[in-house]
């Protein structure tokens, strides 16, 4: 759905459900996942419907993902880090991390 206007110079690599994804240093997890074209960040707890970011500025919580085992993280607010492991948030996050 999106393509880079400026080439990514020295990318860092993050992993979404095991798939390596190049990211620009300093950008948010949501930005690089959108560029990579992942079809959903989370599935809703009620209907299981797929969601992608809607606002990108921390208001809608539709970008929730699991980051390093910690569920319900706002991907549009968290910056990428080399080797970061992200998973689709399936339903509600459990207590003490994990989805």
């Amino acid at each position, binding site marked *: *759905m*999106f*393509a*880079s*206007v*400026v*080439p990514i*110079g020295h990318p860092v690599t993050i992993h979404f459900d095991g798939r390596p994804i190049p990211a*620009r240093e*300093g*950008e*948010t997890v949501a*930005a*690089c996942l*959108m*560029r990579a074209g992942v*079809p*959903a960040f989370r599935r*809703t707890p*009620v*209907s299981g*419907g*797929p*969601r*992608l*970011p*809607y*606002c*990108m*500025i*921390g*208001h*809608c*919580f*539709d970008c*929730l993902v699991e980051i390093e085992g*910690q569920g*319900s993280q706002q991907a*549009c*607010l968290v*910056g990428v880090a080399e080797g970061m492991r992200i998973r689709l948030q399936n339903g509600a996050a459990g*207590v003490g991390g994990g989805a």
Partner: protein
Amino acid sequence: MPPFPDAPKPDADVIVIGAGPAGMAASVDLARAGRRVIVLDMQPGPGGQIYRGLEANLAEGAAAGALMTALGPAYAAGADLIRAFRGTESIDFRPGHTVWEVRRDGTVGWLQGTKAGYLRAAHVVLANGAMERPVPFPGWTLPGVMTAGAVQTLLKAGQMKPLGRVAIAGTGPLVFLLADQFRRLGVRPVMLARTDRLRDQIGALPRLRLPAVPSLAKGAGWLARLRLAGIPMARGVTGIEAVGATKVEALRLWRGRQLTEVACDLLVVHDGVVPSIDLAQGAGARIEWNQGLQAWQAATEEDGVMVPAPGASLVDGPCRILMSGDARQIGGAEAAMAHGRHVAAVLLAQGQSASRTRLRKSLLPRRFLEAAFPPGLSASLPTGNTTVCRCEEIDAAGLDGLIRAGAQDIDQIRGLSRCGMGPCQGRHCAVTLARMIAAQTGRAPVPFRARPPVRPLPLAALAALAGRDPRLTEIVSLDDKPVVGVDV
């Protein structure tokens, strides 16, 4: 009884929340006058949403040249302020910090990653900006439906442009600006569906003042270029729908009874911006409904001091919170800068009348824009199975049923339906539900009751809060047994 513990020492003279144009302008002036300033912002760098990513894009120089050109001079205009902000070394800037509580005694609760705590200052400036007006329409939760602000963020901070068929629906100058930015990047929107009508703009003409003319000319320029490029445009759109199974596949738009369907891969929506009231409301502000704006605003005194709602409060004493920028009154970037400088002048008790005059002048164009581009996508209330609460997936019919059955208190409906109880804490459903209730009762819309934390706070962070007030951690219960570790 042990001797009463001391109050914690203040961490700064002023805590500024938000590093957008208002927050940056205020903190630069305050710090240059010798005040100790802490600035908290959710984002990784300064600039706010309007100048999001500007610092990084400028640092990339020629590599980001095409992007900077597409984003245009209004975006580049933030460079001076960001430079001044970064150049004022005494400003203690803390990016990546979410604020989940503000108290009127000057206490601020922050969260960074899994760490959280309190900070205190003699004054707090709320410059937490605006949010896009929620627009519940059928299909608005489908992947591929995004706000104009979201797409701008991807453009500015993600340096990316949309691929495939892009449809834009809504109203206001940002819609034209975004379409023009796309055009410069070689993306031709398949449809620009506008809810505003020529009669809105004609009706707004009496509100036109000289200072508004440059922004009007800018808008006319965007529009002329879009027409010249032959971008399909529809006016007077009365309703839209996003259709698709697991993602948006088409935009349906109505003009009265006339239906048009346009296939698309991305649907960008925008219905204007409204003040972010979450922090002010959590701090106990009196929240007022602004009929013209169709949105809530925190009540303020003439110079921006927040007016608390009547009734009991956790803390007493004078209100030490001042509001600035779009969070106080929607005006756009230039007005927000003037607003930030004004709030600094008020706190420094110096040059306030000049800064107030500049602020008033900078807000003038807004009076025209508000009338020329009234809310459209949200003008009529949702019905049937259109989602109102995105988090809990509650539709209009269910809420309507409760309201008709006599539940006319918004907090009661929240309890009965879970509407507003998801992670966004009502940010996207409150105004719709409140307007649905108001349509029945004839009274002004009332928001949910809001209590801190106004953003989700991990339990682990809560358990290890830094900077607690020792006076509040020891509470003598009814049977005189001290309970330790309760911070109210």
